[in-house]
């Protein structure tokens, strides 16, 4: 979204989505004076923010927003949802688990990068490390085959895993946003690789080269999430929640300010926004998404080793994000799906050993010819069709 797009979206939002706007005001009522300053330079109907009539009734705004969201549902959304729900019965267990669940878990991690890169303008290569922090925490605190695991109940381990993921992501963010643009990619890569070597060399905490084996999804209310079908739906639920969270966040005042920071940090700073705080918060939110994906991925693999967070995987996350396209959260899952399909069926098409060559070549082609990824290809195709 360019600056002009953003401005247009703000104007459109002010005109049409009155209830949604009011909810923003309600959500940010504490800082409504700040909201006043948030008006972009482009003209906007007076009082769209200022007339904070529903500040006192956030629940009313919430239901209105929900109804509005339901009203926005189109046939294609329903069709996609039905397809996702019916997928296990269309395919077999192998497809459900190896393709479906894996693509959703990897897609979650990729989504964190798509959110950071697409809406925050920050390309972080450390997202797999953040996922690894969550995964390692679950393995260390929860139950595993290694002796140094503490054997806590799964919910505590997961809660701490997500917490540590958010904390470490914010820390990486706080350090890397002090520098700009191209530097971010180098610094996050350095962090990611440093964490890999730490996990590889440290035996007292990370169990060194062996890592943790037999880290399995728990059994809750008699449902074993190790089985393909329940695990697929667990991944699907998490992925949908994360997708909606991102879609919702980018329409909140925070999300819109974040896109402003991406497009022109100096102007946003001049308007009184704390640019660093917005960026660090974006890292924190992305850390939550990556952590969730990391926990699912550990359960999917049943193990975590330094090999799960090596440079190859750090870069694979970027490959998936770029493959799908960073302009829309959907691209993350699309990229992950294509990646998983290539990885799984590469053995039938060509020598399995050369998977990296193929994925590298595909990535190069996409970067060279379609900077917006597969989504960009699709929209370009549609434009040509309608012309």
């Amino acid at each position, binding site marked *: 979204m360019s600056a002009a797009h953003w401005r247009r979206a703000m104007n459109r939002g002010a005109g049409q989505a009155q209830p949604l706007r009011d909810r923003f005001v309600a959500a940010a009522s504490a800082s409504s004076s700040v909201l006043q300053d948030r008006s972009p330079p482009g003209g906007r109907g007076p009082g769209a923010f200022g007339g904070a009539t529903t500040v006192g009734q956030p629940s009313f705004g919430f239901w209105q927003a929900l109804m509005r969201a339901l009203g926005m549902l189109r046939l294609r959304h329903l069709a996609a949802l039905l397809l996702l729900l019916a997928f296990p019965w269309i395919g077999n267990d192998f497809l459900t688990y190896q393709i479906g669940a894996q693509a959703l878990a990897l897609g979650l991690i990729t989504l964190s990068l798509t959110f950071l890169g697409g809406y925050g303008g920050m*390309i972080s290569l450390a997202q797999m490390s953040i996922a690894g922090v969550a995964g390692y925490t679950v393995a260390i605190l929860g139950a595993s085959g290694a002796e140094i695991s503490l054997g806590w109940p799964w919910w505590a381990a997961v809660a701490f895993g997500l917490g540590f993921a958010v904390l470490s992501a914010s820390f990486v963010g706080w*350090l*890397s946003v*002090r*520098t*700009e*643009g*191209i*530097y971010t*990619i*180098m*610094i996050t*890569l*350095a*962090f990611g*690789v*440093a964490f890999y*070597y*730490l996990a590889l*060399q*440290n*035996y*007292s905490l990370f169990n060194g080269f062996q890592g943790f084996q037999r880290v399995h999804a728990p059994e809750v209310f008699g449902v074993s999430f190790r089985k393909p079908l329940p695990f697929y739906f667990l991944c699907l639920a998490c992925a949908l929640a994360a997708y909606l969270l991102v879609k919702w966040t980018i329409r909140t005042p925070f999300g819109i300010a974040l896109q402003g920071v991406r497009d022109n940090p100096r102007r946003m700073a001049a308007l009184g926004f704390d640019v660093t705080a917005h960026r660090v918060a974006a890292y924190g939110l992305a850390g939550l998404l990556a952590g969730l994906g990391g926990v699912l991925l550990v359960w999917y693999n049943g193990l975590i080793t330094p090999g799960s967070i*090596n*440079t190859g995987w750090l*870069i694979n996350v*970027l*490959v998936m994000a*770029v493959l799908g396209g960073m302009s829309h959260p959907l691209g993350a899952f699309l990229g992950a799906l294509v990646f998983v399909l290539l990885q799984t069926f590469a053995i039938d098409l060509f020598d399995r*050993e*050369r998977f*990296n*060559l193929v*994925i*590298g*070549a595909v*990535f*190069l082609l996409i*970067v*060279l010819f379609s*900077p917006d990824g597969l989504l960009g290809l699709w929209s370009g195709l549609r434009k040509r069709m309608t012309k």
Partner: protein
Amino acid sequence: MMPAGRITALVLVLAGLLLSAWGLAHNPRLFLITLLNGLTLAALYFIVASGFTLVFGLMRNVNLAHGSLYLLGGYIGYAVAEASGWWMLAIAAGFLGAALAGFLIQILILRHMQGEELRQTMVTIGLSIVIGDLLLWAFTAQVHQMEPPEWLDGPIRDIPLIRAYSAYRLSLLVFGVVIGLFLWWLLARTRVGAMIRAGVDDRAMLSAAGVNVNMVFALTFMLGAGLAGLGGVIGAVELSMVPGEDTRLLLASLIVVIVGGMGSVSGAALGAVILGLAETFGLAYAPTYSVVFTFLILVLVLAFRPRGILGRPA
């Protein structure tokens, strides 16, 4: 540097001196050998990272395929040394091979996306995947070790306190210093160097002054890639070549230029010394946490001097 920064630097240097005094008193031989190991490793890091920082300083292009060029140079040097038996020829071949690869990358791909830094960086990521896999295909995952030339083989004996030290490792130090001096001469005393320095400061003005900027870019990229390849041949004796070394050297280059300051050759030298010493001292005195030292240095520098110790605002 601000006065506060100067005081911090002074405190850090004093603490370092105190620690080294303790190390000397505790076990002088271990301390001195570790010091030499650190400095020789730093020399290798400097050779590789100086190419990285040159390219970055001029083109604002983070070449994440730098590690792959290092490995490429190493393998080419290995093949040439096997065929001809001449070590000097291997070094020249490693330099030229990597420089040629860098030239092709610049001419065929990067030139067409001038100014799109992020896209260029992503292209180099893709290239590093492809080059890495092609090298794996050609040379398999076996560990390749190069023999040092005969006149550098074996230890130098009868050094006071240390007793014996590998002649080859000491020669790394000489290599690092020679290359550092060469780069200084090239940048400070020649016409090409003046062009490169002018390009670092203001690309548009350089082009307006009638200099063929594309040619300067291609030359610099070749030089940077060649230095990586040269480092690869030198490192092939000491560190051995195996897939994965490319990542290690890429990480080292990244940290060296982040700590030292991006785009500055003297910063690369400083960063290389700091990283080399931190790694070897960490390995000698606290083996499981050696990475943590590196990481701590990175965090401290980023927290207090986000542009690196000798870095300037872009």
